């Protein structure tokens, strides 16, 4: 077989042009002139994710850094689900921003292998005080083959089983700690006419969070660890099929809110179901605590939002304290940026990204920042109960599994999301799911 190297930029241009031709309109034609390798001077571009409360925090962070006078960061926000496609296209086209928001794991690995992001190992060794500010565990997802390609930022975001205390009281159940409790709560919620579980199924990674915990509770954290390592036939582990049958049980019990198939996480209707007392439970990332706090009136402030670990399953191997989620947010440095841009970005990484002001703002918004020495700040916060619980869960957990779609390579992750949606629509059996996913291991 012959290898032909075509220039990337022209091919992406060609593809984009063809998209514009064959699609009447779509939002993927390259980014505006900003960013990329052409720019000079002491400014760098930064693409970040929109959505409160983090949007304001990021904006304030950048404003504060720009006022230091050591360089300028141009900030642009994108919606989470759309950003994932946009950033990849931009990187492929050589139009990436200087500072790239990412999630570490498998996606970062593809960027690193294609040398699209800078190796930060040397810089972090020189500036060890920067590295030491962070909690040790967050570096793992930023590391590819012993080299660090991303800076952790923001907050640790384990996935949490939230509940609406008012609704649970009305239907007469406690927060579920076992599978039987959960099924009981679902039944009682349904007969009381409230949605048992809020789920934004159209976004697919939301349904995947259920799979992550179900697989953990059934087979322990090792099952996915083997999958992420790409071991042959690791998806055919009996625990995967068992996980699928648990989903079938949930579907049969009408566990998810009406119309969950068409709800999207970007519009936050799942959170709205919670704070408007229309749903009893919601499995979601820790960041939704802040979202419900800023969007849900006085729901959080009145102490009506409950939280806890995902229930255990009898006979399963996973412990109640095992966690799944995002160890941190990550930002990488584009290899295509000019030296001046890289310099500004590195100064930003050191002096702007995670200052005390930023971690205070994070605590205030209801998240646990990924930097050391936060105990006092957490204890003094309005949300001390929740934050200290998250903090101690993170400290005590025997296993923290990274979100699957971020741990896997992008193509396998997309296949996972497609199959997850099919499973939750009842269009795939657990066995088919396992086989479809196993086929991704060969590639």
């Amino acid at each position, binding site marked *: 077989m012959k290898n032909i190297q075509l220039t990337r930029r022209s*091919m992406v241009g060609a*593809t984009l042009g063809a998209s514009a031709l064959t699609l009447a309109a*779509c939002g993927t034609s390259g980014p505006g002139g900003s960013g990329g390798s052409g720019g000079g001077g002491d400014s760098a571009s930064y693409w970040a994710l929109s959505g409160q409360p983090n949007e304001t925090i990021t904006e304030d962070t950048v404003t504060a850094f720009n006022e230091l006078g050591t360089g300028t960061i141009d900030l642009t926000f994108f919606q989470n689900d759309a950003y994932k496609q946009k950033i990849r296209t931009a990187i492929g086209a050589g139009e990436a921003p200087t500072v790239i928001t990412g999630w570490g794991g498998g996606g970062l690995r593809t960027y690193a292998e294609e040398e699209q992001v800078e190796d930060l190992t040397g810089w972090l060794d020189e500036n060890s005080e920067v590295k030491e500010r962070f909690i040790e565990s967050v570096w793992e997802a930023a590391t590819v083959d012993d080299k660090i390609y991303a800076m952790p930022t923001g907050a640790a975001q384990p996935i949490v089983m939230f509940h609406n205390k008012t609704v649970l009281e009305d239907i007469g159940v406690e927060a579920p700690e076992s599978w039987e409790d959960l099924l009981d709560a679902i039944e009682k919620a349904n007969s009381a006419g409230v949605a048992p579980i809020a789920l934004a199924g*159209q976004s697919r990674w939301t349904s995947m969070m259920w799979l992550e915990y179900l697989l953990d509770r059934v087979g322990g954290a090792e099952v996915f660890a083997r999958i992420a390592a790409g071991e042959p036939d690791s998806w055919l582990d009996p625990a995967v099929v068992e996980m699928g049958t648990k989903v079938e049980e949930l579907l049969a019990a009408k566990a998810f809110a009406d119309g969950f198939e068409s*709800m999207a996480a970007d519009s936050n209707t799942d959170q709205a179901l919670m704070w408007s007392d229309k749903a009893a439970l919601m499995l979601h990332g820790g960041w939704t605590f802040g979202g419900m706090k800023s969007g849900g009136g006085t729901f959080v402030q009145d102490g009506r939002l409950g939280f806890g670990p995902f229930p255990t399953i009898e006979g399963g191997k996973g412990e109640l304290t095992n966690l799944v989620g995002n160890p941190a947010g990550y930002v990488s440095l584009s290899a295509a940026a000019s030296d001046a841009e890289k310099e500004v970005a590195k100064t930003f990484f050191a002096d702007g990204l995670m200052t005390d002001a930023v971690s205070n703002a994070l605590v205030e918004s209801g998240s646990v920042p990924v930097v050391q020495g936060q105990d006092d700040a957490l204890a003094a916060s309005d949300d001390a109960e929740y934050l200290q619980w998250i903090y101690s869960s993170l400290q005590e957990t025997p296993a923290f599994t990274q979100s699957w779609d971020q741990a896997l390579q992008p193509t396998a992750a997309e296949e996972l999301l497609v199959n997850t949606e099919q499973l939750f629509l009842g269009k795939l059996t657990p066995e088919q799911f396992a086989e479809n996913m196993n086929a991704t291991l060969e590639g």
Partner: protein
Amino acid sequence: MTSAGPAAIPAVPERHRAPGHGGGPASATSVRVHKQRLHLSHVLFALPALLFFLVFAILPLIGVLALSFTSWNGIGAIEFTGLTSWTDALTRETTWRGLLLVLFMIVATWLLQTPLSILLGTFLAGQQRYRNVLAVMYFLPMLLSSAAIAITFKSLLDPNFGVPAGLELEFLQQNWLGDSTLVWVALLVIIAWQFIPFHTLIYQGAVRQIPQTMYEAAQIDGAGRVRQFFSITLPQLKYTLITSSTLMVVGALTYFDIIFVLTQGGPGKSTRILPLDMYLTGFRGNEMGVASSLAVILVVIGLGLALGVQRLGGKSSSASQLEGA
């Protein structure tokens, strides 16, 4: 009934050919004569459009064709892999499902939009003031972008916070976007809502072109309103129908934006039509090679359909529609 035009052409006497592009009425014959001489000015006039077409249509097409024989994840090196992408694209179940769905969509949108557009266009062709007021309202959706329409309808149809839930209307409280059958009802109606105004506008213009004398003659012969519509209006709209249908068919074939924002191809793969499948395969699945194969398939089908619809008009599409007027 239109055969008189072309059959007559060879019979046109020689003298018409002599003056070349002199003045006088542009008959079919004189058009032919023009074609024989290629003037520099003609080339210059066509050049900008030609260049534009070359750079933004032909070049990308060649690029996509080349990419369809490669394997590429979007950021790495492009690897030439022969027919692998093609066999991948043609053996995937989603490709064939997407193709069937898009063909269904073409037929359904045409059946839904064409009769409504013709009726509305005919109605709005009247010059009464209230019709003009209604026309302004009917044309409003044309001012909105697809993304805005999709986001609006998504909120309106939200199963928990949408209009049906708010009004507590039992029959409207359906899982509009979450049920694999109902989602098509919702989609077709929304797409019709967006595009009927455009086609109505075309038909309105065409109906206004029909000479009033034809209707007067029909009235003298005792034809009623309905008879006039079927015997004069509809036949006179033949070429407009072809234009509108071409736009509709090709438009439906490449339809993407509303579905992408509204359902993302879901629930499951229920609305994952081929153009959307192409996008998702390329930009979400990062399989640019396979996506390019799908793009080539779409281009070929689109060209075929456009030519086919044009053919329906017969070879005499340049002939006069107004004989007898």
